[in-house]
């Protein structure tokens, strides 16, 4: 084999804490990347993948130290170069595309100037031509109107546009290698699919090598030729993408892949117990405590990353042979478990013609007589039955959080009714009797923000108990706290901990315990698993399903992840710009006919399967406000008919034989049934 473009060997990086103890971030990492190859680097948060990405560019976070090993790029020792030499290479031969483009662009410099800077630093293009090249680059990353955009400041662009600008900047000197650190995390699914498409095309065209870092197996499957899997600061498996996804040889890879919800599978995926250790704290294999294959040797002898004979496949496991003999496809099918629960006939919550607006005209606006913008949420009518899980689905700005917060009483509804038994929930929480508030509990996306950092877990769970059960005395409440903690699978030792001392999954469990402390009838879940790692997500979903079965709880479940919806929901409502597009049971929604927007969303989903290709239908142009009349999706709809879509609100239609399945579109039903092949081919 000839010289690799990147050759990382035995790289070990760590830092010293304030108390002087050494903490490893990376341990003995060895990795090669060939010219033109795309390596996907995948792992859960905290596994050291970003550190590895930065180390590839000869960069260490302040405080971190190189403890051993080397990074060679184009046969140059990246940690042996002078700062001047590094400046030469960075951006010219190896360029970074960072995670949060919005923060990685200098806020006081115009977009164009930041790209021109990269061009002037790293290419021979004469000064006068740099601007031309910059505009060409903006065009190459498919940004509309490059001349206009070049004059803008970073904060004036949408997330997707910022990400493209960063891509353009990285491409300025046509580097041999790109390091991409979660470049699409935080973007909407359609935007993500578009950006990935762009990257693939560019790489194919220019022959650039990539190291693509992501926690998302779907994204990794989409872009990678080869995949490196990281766990606790080590590479545990390194294999061609197809092999990694079809027949993984490391138990961790299997566990991870099994825990991912899939569009084609209903039921909650199997979760992996436990958490990764701090790198280098276990004498044997870091994964041993969580591993179903583990034996004595795993606890004493660290495994070494060794090739599987006759294959381009490296694995760091004592038992890889045993792992490989079990058929992964079968295992995968077994790992999805539907938690049966009964759905009642009586409605839990009925929304009719709900309208919600954030707009509060100021004095000046009123004087200037500015017309009111269209309401944020409009014309939402739907019913959730007892014990049912209704998923609200849509991209950012679809109004799903707004609706849920209105039900929770944090925002008043401007029009319509929200019936909860005999009570109308259109009023704010201050005007609701405690017995009503008690029945409806809300769980937030980010447990870091939703738990008061100054309260212990016991105090956090105690608050709803005190509020809703004033008759309980201290001992009874304490008993109940322990009971609730056990119910969310946390030991009572957690009572005296502060949120900062918990992991992400544990925090979310505490938040769930707090919600269930009220013994509610309806629980509103706002992206409750989005901030969690996949293996943790599966456990949380499983817990929620269990609780529902046990207490006949009704869930209104918000998520942008269609695979999670498939796993967890009974019925689905698809929203665009605060308006309903489609409503039906999970099975109805996930099969044609689709609303064109649902079809777009489905097409953009990336599955952890390298053979799946997304179908890009609508553009990913962001919209700030819904159109004032006609169909809300008119401006992006790939199947728009004509003026009727712009002028008239579309009618609700039901496919034959599916009375509860409703699609709001002007297209006739038989045309809606006729969808592009690829989407439904699985």
């Amino acid at each position, binding site marked *: 084999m000839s010289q690799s473009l990147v050759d990382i060997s035995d790289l070990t990086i760590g830092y010293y804490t304030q108390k002087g103890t050494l903490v490893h971030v990376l341990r003995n990492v060895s990795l090669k990347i060939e010219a033109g190859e795309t390596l996907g680097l995948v792992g859960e948060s905290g596994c050291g993948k970003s550190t590895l990405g930065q180390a590839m560019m000869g*960069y260490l976070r302040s405080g971190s130290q190189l403890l051993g090993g080397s990074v060679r790029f184009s046969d140059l020792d990246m940690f042996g170069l002078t700062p001047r030499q590094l400046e030469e290479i960075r951006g010219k031969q190896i*360029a970074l595309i960072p995670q949060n483009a919005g*923060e*990685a*662009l200098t806020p*006081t410099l115009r977009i164009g100037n930041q790209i021109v*800077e*990269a061009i002037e*630093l790293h290419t021979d293009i004469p000064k006068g031509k740099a601007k031309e090249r910059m505009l060409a680059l903006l065009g190459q990353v498919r940004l509309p109107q490059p001349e206009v955009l070049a004059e803008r*400041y970073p904060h004036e662009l949408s997330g997707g546009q910022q990400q493209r600008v960063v891509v353009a900047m990285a491409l300025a000197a046509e580097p041999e290698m790109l390091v991409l650190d979660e470049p699409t995390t935080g973007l909407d699914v359609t935007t993500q699919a578009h950006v990935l498409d762009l990257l693939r095309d560019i790489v194919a065209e220019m022959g650039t090598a990539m190291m693509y870092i992501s926690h998302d197996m779907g994204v990794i499957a989409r872009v990678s030729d080869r995949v490196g899997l990281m766990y606790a600061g080590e590479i545990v498996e390194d294999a061609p993408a197809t092999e990694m996804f079809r027949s993984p040889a490391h138990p961790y890879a299997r566990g991870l892949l099994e825990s991912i919800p899939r569009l084609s599978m209903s039921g909650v995926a199997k979760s992996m117990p436990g958490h990764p250790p701090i790198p280098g704290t276990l004498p044997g294999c870091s994964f041993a405590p969580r591993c179903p294959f583990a034996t004595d040797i795993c606890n004493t002898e660290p495994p070494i990353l060794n090739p599987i004979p006759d294959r381009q496949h490296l694995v760091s496991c004592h038992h890889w042979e045993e792992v490989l003999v079990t058929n992964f496809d079968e295992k995968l099918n077994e790992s999805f478990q539907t938690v049966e629960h009964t759905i009642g006939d009586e409605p839990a919550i009925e929304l009719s013609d709900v309208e919600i607006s954030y707009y509060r005209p100021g004095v000046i606006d009123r004087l200037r007589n500015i017309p009111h913008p269209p309401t944020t949420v409009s014309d939402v009518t739907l019913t959730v039955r007892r014990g049912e899980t209704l998923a609200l689905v849509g991209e950012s700005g679809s109004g799903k959080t707004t609706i849920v917060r209105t039900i929770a009483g944090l925002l008043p509804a401007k029009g319509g009714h929200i019936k909860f038994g005999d009570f109308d929930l259109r009023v704010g929480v201050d005007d609701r009797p405690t017995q009503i508030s008690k029945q409806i509990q809300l769980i937030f996306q980010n447990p870091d923000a939703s738990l008061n950092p100054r309260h212990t877990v016991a105090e956090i769970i105690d608050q709803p108990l005190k509020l809703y059960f004033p008759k309980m005395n201290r001992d009874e409440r304490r008993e109940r706290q322990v009971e609730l903690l056990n119910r969310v699978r946390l030991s009572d030792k957690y009572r005296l901990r502060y949120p900062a001392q918990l992991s992400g999954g544990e925090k979310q469990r505490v938040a769930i315990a707090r919600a269930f402390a009220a013994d509610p009838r309806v629980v509103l879940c706002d992206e409750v698993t989005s901030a969690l790692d996949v293996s943790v997500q599966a456990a949380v979903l499983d817990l929620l399903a269990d609780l529902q079965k046990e207490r006949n709880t009704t869930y209104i479940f918000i998520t942008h992840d269609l695979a999670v919806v498939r796993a967890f929901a009974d019925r689905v409502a698809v929203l665009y710009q605060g308006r309903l597009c489609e409503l039906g049971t999970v099975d109805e929604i996930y099969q044609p006919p689709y609303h064109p927007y649902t079809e777009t969303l489905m097409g953009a989903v990336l599955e952890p399967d390298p053979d799946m290709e997304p179908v890009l239908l609508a553009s990913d142009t962001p919209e700030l406000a819904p159109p004032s009349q006609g169909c809300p999706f008119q401006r992006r709809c790939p199947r728009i008919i004509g003026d009727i879509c712009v002028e008239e609100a579309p009618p609700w239609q039901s496919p034959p034989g599916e009375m509860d399945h409703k699609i709001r579109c002007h297209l006739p039903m038989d045309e809606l049934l006729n969808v592009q092949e690829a989407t439904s081919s699985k």
Partner: protein
Amino acid sequence: MIVLVGRRVVLAILTLFLISLIVFLGVEALPGDAATAYLGQSATPESLDALRQEFGLYAPIQERYLTWLGGILQGDLGTSMVRRNPVTEVIGNQLRNTVVLAAAAALVGIPLAIVLGVVAGLTRDKWPDIFVSTSSIVGMTLPGFVTATILIFIFAIRLEWFPAITMVPTDASVAELLPNIVLPIITLTFIMVAHILRLVRTNMIDVMTSDYVQMARLKGVPSRRIVFKHALPNAMLPTINVVALTLAWLIGGIAVIETVFNYPGIGKLMVNSINDRDFPTVMAIAIVLAIVYITFNLIADLLTLVLNPRLRSARGH
């Protein structure tokens, strides 16, 4: 943009009206009135009556406020009880002297503070930073009169380089003034630099650890260019308002330093007027200083608005 600027200007004017009201009502709260305060408890009823007549203190409160406010709007700040001449005349020279002092200090101090702050921020926890930061703590924490006294001891008494106190008439020309004010300027500069540089240092550290500076490094931008093009403009933005606040604060604190050096500025006049219980002058000084303060803040606000693209184009949201 125009709406934003307009808003700030309207708010500034509103604040000024509020200040005039607070100052006026504050003096009204005096036990007795301005006349008794000035003449003291032992004054005869006749002299009190004469003074009240002269200063129109018999008019109802709202009328006196409106007259006073109307006067201010026309540039008439009232009449000094001590000197019996218009306050405008009394203040004029003193204000100029203070402006000369403050401007000289600002001219030296602000650039120095920025340079030192940036150096300290870039060499975080290394010796230039430790030296600069430690001296800034001393400069910031010592009261102005202590700093001044120490400087006088060293430079005026031991070294005899500069006069210990100013000995020029109030209406001396700027040229006559200058040699006298070296020590006051040094004192003021020292205090001002300490405050501003600490802030510049923190901002610089924040910015240097930001994602965009890291990105610039990984883009291969040379260090010097990172500092000047990517970091400095962003570190300076929040500094503008603090510079304005510090300048305004100096005007308040300048009274102490002017007293130490016997410098004929508005701060010293303020202390003297309060000692003399000359309330018309005190009220006038309060208004003048508030106008200066608000103007500085307004300028800083507008400057930030112009320099910060995020504020400038508050589109949509």
